[in-house]
């Protein structure tokens, strides 16, 4: 062994200098960081001082240092949002004046309305009506041609603006089918009979033991005023057509019995105050164009 390996600060096995730290005879090699790495490391520290000066950096008690160029990411977002709004306003300028029918007739406006309507529908309507307006039991499918309150552009716009059964809105859509069972208007067998008759009206099969004559009589006395003698419904009153292939709550005996006994009172919020008129127009055109518009 030569002299330098006797030095406690040099490791005998590798000839590397050590840090002088020793644990149970194991010494820590001193492997310095590469110079280029250290150089960059120090450079970043110097750089950070410039950063502190130029950008917001140091938290103070109630605030933070602002930095000499006055940068703020929040201001950036506001500027971006304002820019986006201005851009959209320019695109949708024609829509503020036009009626839904005019929008639908203008290819450019129609395209904008469809894009805007699709986004607004996803944000506000899809929770109940489903993406694409497919609906569910109790939530109307907006793609079909069956409308409770009318499928024309003005009717759809009215429904979106004022909603259904919105308390305190005089223009809202209201229909009030009685809860024939719960309120004691009809007896159990009368409900069963009229449910069978409704199935008969819709062209569906009825049970052999069903009392159809009683059902017809009960229907004429209690239901025909709104749903019509033939069960074709009345959109003015929000009375659904009972004879078509579409039903909101189901046409099986159990669902019908439930409907007649307890009534159904679905609700939809009015959007007049929540969405701006342009968005409502876009939604009107979008829903009208899903396939069932009249």
């Amino acid at each position, binding site marked *: 062994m030569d002299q330098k390996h006797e030095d406690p600060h040099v490791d005998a096995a590798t*000839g590397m200098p050590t840090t002088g730290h020793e644990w149970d005879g194991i010494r820590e090699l001193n492997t310095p960081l590469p110079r280029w790495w250290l150089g960059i490391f120090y450079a970043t520290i110097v750089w950070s001082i410039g950063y502190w000066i130029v950008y917001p950096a140091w938290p103070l008690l109630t605030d933070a240092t602002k930095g000499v160029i006055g940068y703020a990411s929040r201001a950036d977002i506001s500027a971006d949002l304002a820019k986006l709004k201005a851009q959209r306003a320019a695109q949708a300028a024609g829509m503020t004046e036009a009626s839904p029918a005019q929008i639908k007739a203008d*290819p450019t406006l129609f395209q904008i309305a469809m894009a805007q309507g699709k986004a607004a529908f996803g944000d506000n309507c899809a929770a109940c009506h*489903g993406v694409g307006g497919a609906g569910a039991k109790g939530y109307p*499918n907006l793609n079909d041609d069956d409308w409770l309150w009318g499928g024309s552009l003005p009717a759809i716009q009215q429904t979106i603006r004022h909603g259904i059964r919105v308390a305190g809105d005089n223009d809202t859509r209201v229909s009030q089918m009685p809860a024939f069972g719960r309120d004691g208007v009809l007896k159990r067998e009368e409900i069963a009979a009229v449910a069978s008759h409704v199935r008969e009206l819709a062209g569906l099969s009825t049970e052999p033991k069903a009392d159809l004559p009683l059902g017809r009589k009960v229907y004429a006395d209690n239901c025909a005023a709104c749903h019509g003698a033939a069960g074709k419904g009345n959109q003015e009153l929000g009375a659904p057509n009972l004879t078509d*292939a579409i039903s909101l709550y189901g046409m099986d005996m159990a669902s019908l019995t439930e409907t007649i006994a307890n009534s159904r009172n679905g609700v939809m919020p009015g959007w007049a105050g929540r969405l701006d008129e342009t968005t409502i127009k876009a939604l009107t055109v979008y829903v009208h164009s899903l396939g069932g518009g009249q």
Partner: protein
Amino acid sequence: MSTAEADQDDIPLFAASRKVYPQSVSGPFRRAKWLILVLCLGVYYLLPFLRWDRGPYLPNQAVLADIANNRFYFFFIEIWPQEVYYFTGLLILAAFVLFLMNAVAGRVWCGYLCPQTVWTDLFLSVERFFEGDRRERMRRDAEPWGFDTLWRKVAKHAVWLVIAWWTGGAWVLYFADAPTLVRELATFTAPLSAYVWIAILTFTTYALAGIMREQVCKYMCPWPRIQAALTDDEALNVTYRYDRGEPRVSVKQAAKLKAQGAPAGDCIDCFQCVAVCPTGIDIRDGAQIDCIQCGLCIDACDTVMTKIGRPNRLIAYDTDGNVQRRLAGLAAIYRPVRLRTLVYAALIAVVGGAMLWQLATRSTAGISVLHERAPLFVTLSDGSIRNAYAVRLLNKRPEHRPFALTVSGLPGIRIEAVGIAPSADLRPVVTVDPDSSREVRVLVTVPAGVPLSPSQAITITASDLFAGETVRADDHFIAPESHR
């Protein structure tokens, strides 16, 4: 670790590169290289300014990669993004052409056509203009720099940078209307990306052609390795005919030896072939990966051979097979047509033919259909079933085209397009703008009473009412499980 091992660790992994000082040379290969250089650079710098009339709706630049509008224009060809396989075909074709060139005459690409070679040649001539020829440059670099060397070097790098900048400037012209972009660049109103790309190309050109030069060919380019694996005994390569050149002796010595009846080669070991070589190799060491086969050593050797009154082409395009044959006392045979070249030529014909056929018969219309998923189907009040589809129609012609939509596959099936009035025969007619596509929401309805399985095939067809071109797409019609 022993001291010996530690020392081994200190051996650098890379040999320091030896600076190459190629000497100027004249001769037919040098002239050919100048001609090709002027042609290639001319095409590169001027092509963006060439105009090609495509009517009122399309740009009139002959070669244009219109990234912003997703179009590529090449004279009469217009490529849409989904037709990018033409480029795949071109690349395959280029590879086979490279193989064929290699099998016939070695690295023709590397020696004459490769941008690395062309730009390096250009940069070398600038270097020579300012710093003088090989010996002068070597002397300048060996001495401490005086003012004369300094200004010459500064001037050289300045001119290099200008050429590099111009290279980048021409590059961006392929991606926008060239005259407009030139005006914008001059008035500093061009898009930022144009300046960034010019800067990138300036840097790469300056670094690759000015600083790295032959090292790009030696270390960066994969082609030398591939070429070495592809060549054979019958391929023409820049070859030192050692059958004729060896043993190397001086002119005087050769006369003496010949008088004694001893063998004397034609190579006088003057090292001119080494002096002119742009990659700094000795061709007399035989075929090697570092040789780009530019032929300049042929010119250099011919000059010397002419001076000393010996036949030219001691270094020449020749095959290794012929050298061997001559050594064995046989006649040289040249076989450019052999199995290898025939196969490459056939592959080029097949790929090129397929691409031409594809291009000639390609449709100028297109249709793609996407079934809507929410909802999959809609039951209408009369019990009929309706499905909705997003139909995108493509019009690749520079004119408005009306397409009539029809649907087939089920009894009573009918089609309507949302927002589009049907024509007299109830077919919705969708007009698509020139050179663009249009998506329409299409509703397909099957009347009640038609027996339907949960999914059945249908076909949506779009027919151009004027040109008569018809495109169709197959899709599915979805019905509820319990369809009544």
